[in-house]
């Protein structure tokens, strides 16, 4: 079996950036990913240098084309296991097994749910976790976005172009998105922000018909009639396989990395939203930066300098 210099796990911004730098370092490598990562959940990205306005999908496609241009490819496989193996690593997917001297772990996060018992019953029946996938089904309807950070604001702005009415429901006393996004939300006539509130129940027969909201300050409960709810509570770090391989994580699941994006296991690096790096600032540009650093660190080990 061929031993790669590095296997990069994840084909989002961190993984693709690591791969682009990997080609510059002439590393023999493989990129394995299931999809483009959470970047495609964003309808508009306007803070990635050189791209004043692009959808997440457009950027992801450009990243893939960039890597392809440099001779790299991505295998879309499901990663099942990573095992440190006498100084090397064995990565098992649903299709094959791969051996490498280093691994760069860039598996991002999985969407956080509302956590209500009836949530699963309504998934696909008015509860959505992907506004870029499902916004088109809510043309001229009333919807809510649960959450108050950047992803919630972006999701609400996308929905406001199609839906009749959009509510943002957030437990905080003010939105915590970028000030420019908050301003856009405030300026959009069909978005109403409901603060200090949480969703206690989803009601409906065959699909979502209303939400029970509770105001955390007054304790008052009320029904909000609508057709759909988009959950934008951020992500849970997808660090399970790294943890199983022995990587240390913070209590919230993010993999602990040093300034070279190295984990506590020699040869295992991590980059992007799954790490404790970049102050938890989950941005395309920070993920790309961490990926580049991880590739350089992997190169140092391969070339005997690390």
């Amino acid at each position, binding site marked *: 079996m061929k031993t790669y210099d590095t296997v990069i796990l994840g084909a989002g911004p961190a993984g693709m950036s690591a791969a682009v730098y990997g080609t510059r370092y002439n590393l023999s490598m493989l990129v394995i990913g299931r999809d483009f990562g959470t970047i495609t959940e964003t309808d508009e990205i306007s803070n990635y240098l050189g791209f004043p306005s692009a959808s997440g999908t457009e950027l992801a496609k450009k990243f893939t084309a960039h890597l392809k241009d440099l001779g790299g490819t991505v295998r879309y496989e499901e990663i099942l296991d990573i095992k440190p193996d006498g100084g090397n690593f064995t990565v098992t997917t649903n299709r094959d097994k791969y051996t490498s001297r280093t691994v760069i772990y860039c598996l991002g996060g999985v969407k956080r749910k509302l956590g209500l018992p009836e949530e699963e019953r309504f998934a696909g029946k008015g509860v959505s976790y*992907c506004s870029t*996938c499902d916004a088109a*089904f809510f043309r001229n309807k009333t919807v809510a976005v649960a959450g108050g950070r950047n992803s919630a604001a972006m999701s609400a702005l996308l929905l406001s172009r199609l839906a009749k009415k959009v509510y943002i429901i957030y437990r905080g006393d003010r939105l915590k998105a970028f000030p420019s996004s908050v301003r856009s939300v405030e300026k959009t006539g069909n978005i109403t922000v409901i603060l200090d509130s949480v969703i206690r129940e989803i009601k409906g027969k065959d699909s979502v018909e209303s939400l029970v909201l509770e105001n955390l300050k007054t304790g008052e409960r009320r029904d909000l009639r609508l057709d759909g709810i988009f959950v934008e509570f951020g992500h849970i770090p997808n660090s399970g396989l790294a943890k199983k391989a022995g990587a240390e994580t913070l209590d919230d699941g993010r993999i602990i990395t040093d300034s070279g994006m190295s984990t506590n296991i020699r040869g295992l690096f991590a980059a992007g939203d799954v790490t404790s790096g970049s102050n938890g600032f989950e941005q395309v540009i920070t993920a790309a930066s961490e990926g580049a650093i991880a590739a350089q660190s992997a190169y140092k080990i391969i070339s005997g300098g690390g």
Partner: protein
Amino acid sequence: MDELEDIRKRKLEEMKRKLGHRETNIEVNDGNFGEKVIEQSKEVPVVVDFWAEWCVPCRMLGPALEHLADKYGGKFVLAKLNVDQNPLTSSKYGIMSIPSVKMFKNGGIADEFVGMLPEPSVDEWIKRNIR
């Protein structure tokens, strides 16, 4: 040349029909859903993938379903329906999230899931449903 190609395709289709060959990976639309999905599901399970061009998870799930349709070699038929181009069927089945995958058996929905699933999980879902 085009005409020759058409004749070749037609002959191939006729031969497949005569040999009882069943297409395992088809595209369906509002017009033929009844025949290709509902009616066909009375003979063999039909897995319908409701998808759209602009849905990235759909474009990831699609190849996994196609791979499984090949792997199972005719034990189920994969039918792909583009929700953008076929609003009647999408609306009839209350599609509000994609990817949305429904298993049709004996003319009705036997099981379904919504959202991107890894291929091993889809494989498990199919195995469970075509037993």
